[in-house]
């Protein structure tokens, strides 16, 4: 791709971007959110057809003018989006051949489809029957189905947009291994990711995009590239420290969960949380580590007004007294806030504006009786906009148009305004860029300094190690380890997960 420039209504999203992918290499594209990675991939895959951008796309030696996704797919360029495009209630085979069904005399030849599917699944190392429904397999396997689908179309260049964002470590590793295998077969791959450690494992070349232009390209084959070098190129400044400095001032125990047990909402006899004990003290940041599916979100949500599960038993204590958290309203009133891992699905009313989202959990704070005081609401929203540095035109802007980091700040602002004592943050930095991450870490440090309890659930161990005073390790519904922040390490945490599974 040479000299790609793309404008939206006069705003330049990409300016003079160059990207060269060699046959059979894994090329990582990194950059902060909003840097223009996705836009660039949309240009390449024909989502923005030829003529809507400036510059040229060369593929296999000749210039291509893609009029749409169909054109690019026919040339062998296939993009797999972050949000998977599979139909949940259709089978694997039906999904793989959706829109591309093998037919005989206009009738779908299911025997051929199933046979081909079986071959493809073997290729991607997925051990499932072609007739299995997509809803019945996990996200990691779904990702593999997407790749199998791409393979069915004779892919030459595979574009993966944050493929491991919602995968646990085992699934991520399997996916990366598959990419290396595809590479050996001569399939080139563009990998968009925020996870630099994964990129370091597989990438041959790393291209950094910042503010719509290519900043730097690293050739990794010559020798390992340090993460700091890449991060520096991404943010355009020396990142002296990825986590804010703080001196913890830890007081008495404020928040306690005792012998917490939760059953699955649909399968009532399945125990999801198996007797968890947790405590958090004033001014402390407590981490919960664990793999995807360990039950961390389920634990947090069941504590927060029983918003997950049923047949819940156990006790939640605040300041040494049993607290009533039987409904979300009561949990909020008791001083607990839960910041969801899924901000679009559970955190925000996307079409509504920033101001209304910020005040939603504490409307009483801006109203007299049941009547909302517009002026007070605006003042509150403006204060949080300033304090959290939410980048927006005004607080009347719909949150749907904000970047991931700014959306996350709006969700945080909502819960800060509810003035909780215990703040449970579930994957607070997922899918947001390095700069915004730092701001969120700083905010957490400030909250702890102000005497709140912060409980942080995260799948990114470095941030747990960087931020937490104490880390619990969760696996299969129970805590299997507890480390003080200073003595914890990735190896120790992993070991406690692995050994717990073996028992």
């Amino acid at each position, binding site marked *: 791709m040479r000299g790609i420039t793309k404008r939206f209504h006069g705003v330049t999203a990409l300016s003079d971007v160059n990207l060269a992918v060699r046959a059979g290499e894994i090329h990582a594209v990194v950059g902060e959110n909003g840097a223009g990675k996705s836009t660039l991939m949309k240009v390449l895959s024909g989502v923005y057809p030829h003529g809507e951008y400036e510059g040229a796309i060369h593929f296999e030696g000749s210039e291509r003018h893609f009029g749409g996704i169909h054109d690019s797919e026919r040339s062998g360029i296939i993009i797999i989006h972050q949000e998977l495009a599979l139909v949940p209630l259709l089978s694997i085979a039906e999904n793989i051949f959706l829109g591309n069904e093998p037919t005989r005399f206009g009738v779908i030849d299911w025997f051929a489809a199933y046979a081909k599917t079986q071959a493809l699944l073997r290729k991607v190392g997925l051990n499932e029957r072609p007739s299995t429904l997509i809803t019945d397999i996990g996200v990691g396997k779904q990702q593999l189905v997407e790749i199998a689908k791409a393979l069915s179309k004779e892919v030459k260049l595979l574009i993966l947009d944050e493929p491991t964002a919602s995968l646990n470590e085992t699934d991520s590793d399997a996916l990366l291994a598959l990419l290396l295998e595809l590479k050996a077969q001569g399939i080139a791959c563009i990998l968009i990711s925020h996870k630099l450690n994964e990129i370091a494992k597989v990438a041959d070349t790393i291209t950094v995009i910042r503010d719509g232009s290519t900043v730097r390209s690293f050739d990794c084959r010559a020798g390992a590239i340090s993460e700091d070098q890449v991060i520096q190129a991404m943010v355009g400044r020396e990142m002296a420290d990825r986590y804010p400095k703080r001196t913890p001032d830890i007081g008495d125990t404020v928040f306690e969960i005792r012998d917490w047990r939760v059953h699955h909402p649909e399968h009532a006899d399945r125990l999801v949380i198996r007797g968890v004990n947790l405590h958090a003290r004033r001014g402390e940041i407590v981490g919960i580590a664990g793999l995807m599916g360990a039950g961390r979100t389920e634990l947090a949500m069941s504590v927060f007004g029983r918003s997950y599960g049923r047949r819940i038993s156990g006790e939640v204590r605040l300041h040494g007294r049993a607290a009533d958290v039987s409904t979300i309203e009561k949990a909020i009133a008791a001083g607990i806030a839960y910041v*969801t891992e899924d901000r679009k*699905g559970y955190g925000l009313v996307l079409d509504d504006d920033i101001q209304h989202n910020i005040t939603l959990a504490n409307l009483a704070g801006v109203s007299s009786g049941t009547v909302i005081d517009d002026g007070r609401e605006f003042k509150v929203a403006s204060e949080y906009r300033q304090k959290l540095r939410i980048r927006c035109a005004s607080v009347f802007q719909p949150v749907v148009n904000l970047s991931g980091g700014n959306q996350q700040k709006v969700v945080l602002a909502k819960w800060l305004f509810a003035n909780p004592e215990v703040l449970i943050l579930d994957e607070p930095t997922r899918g947001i860029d390095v700069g915004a991450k730092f701001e969120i870490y700083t905010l957490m440090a400030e909250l702890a300094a102000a005497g709140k309890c912060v409980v942080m659930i995260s799948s990114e161990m470095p941030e747990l190690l960087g931020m937490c005073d104490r880390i619990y390790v969760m696996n299969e519904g129970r805590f299997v380890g507890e480390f003080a922040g200073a003595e914890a390490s990735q190896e120790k945490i992993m070991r406690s997960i692995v050994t717990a599974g073996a028992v």
Partner: protein
Amino acid sequence: MSDTDRSAHPYAGFLKANLREYGMLISLVAIMAFFQIMTDGTLLQPLNLTNLVLQNSYIVIMALGMLLVIVAGHIDLSVGSVVGFIGALAAVLMVQFEWHFVPATLVCLLAGALIGAAQGWFVAFFRIPSFIVTLAGMLVFKGLSLALLQGQSVGPFPPTFQLLSSGFIPDWLGGEALRTTSLLAGILVAFALIAAKLRERANQTRHGMEAEPYPFFVAKNLVFVAIIVAFSWKLASYKGLPNVLIIMTLLMLFYDFVTTRTTIGRRIYALGGNEKAARLSGVKTQWLSFATFVNMGVLAAVAGLVFAARLNTATPKAGTGFELDVIAACFIGGASASGGVGKVLGAVIGAFVMGVMNNGMSILGIGIDYQQVIKGLVLLAAVFVDVYNKRKN
């Protein structure tokens, strides 16, 4: 939109952002002007204007409730049948059992609330899609009104009850050619509106909020005042302000207030916009859904009473197809079928767009066949323009 755009045309940005609101009003005025010309001035004659209000009152009243239901992310198909059922109930109580109209009215409103509660219960607590629950309700209450009336028309209602729809506010100040009280009431409302708007604006500027540009503010409110005064003057030169107009206006102001200024209104928008996020923010989403249906039931009962009083008889076919006009009014008025979006004033304007078209086309002698075709196309066009604008942005 970039900053340069904004500074180049100081008002263009604002106009664009609020096109929807002004657009609705402008299209209503345009439609009225069109029929005014086509009907050689019949449309805005005092008599016809009064009829227009009377004919549309029950649609407007139900549109207020339907808007809340739609904003909450549901739909209510049963309101037409409920109108018929409540009319039948009122007729049985007042005509056959000879009850006084006050207890009869109260029983009817209670019945409406119960109907709404029954349907809302299934929708809110059992998560059965409202489309299905209220489709069932539509059949049930149509059947029940037939059963209540035993297939007959029942009437006439006592004269005191008829005043609900055929009465006008009394004229204490005298005046035969011009009902002065009515005119004065209209002028008072206009002044009250100006006072309220000025206060709101002062409050906005005091808190440093970006208010609409001054020329827009003045122009918009002058137009409103002119319309209200002209409207009440027209009505005053016939029989004055109809009672039902007063009821309608009060309800309209009440629901506008509830939706724009209260916590319960805000929570309904949040519920419709993203139910899961609303629930996790402490909103009692199930109870709120339930409440919108109870409210809808009560308003359908009010409409049923108004309609029965207007016809002065209860017939088994009363209310048939009303749900379509009511739902269309909400969507023409800018409500979103997926919930979370819509305004009370939009729904009211939408109801009047439908009403003026009905009335104007009838005066022009267009048959009921093509009237329906045209109304259907207008609904589609209104929603199309909405979706198109949204996409462009």
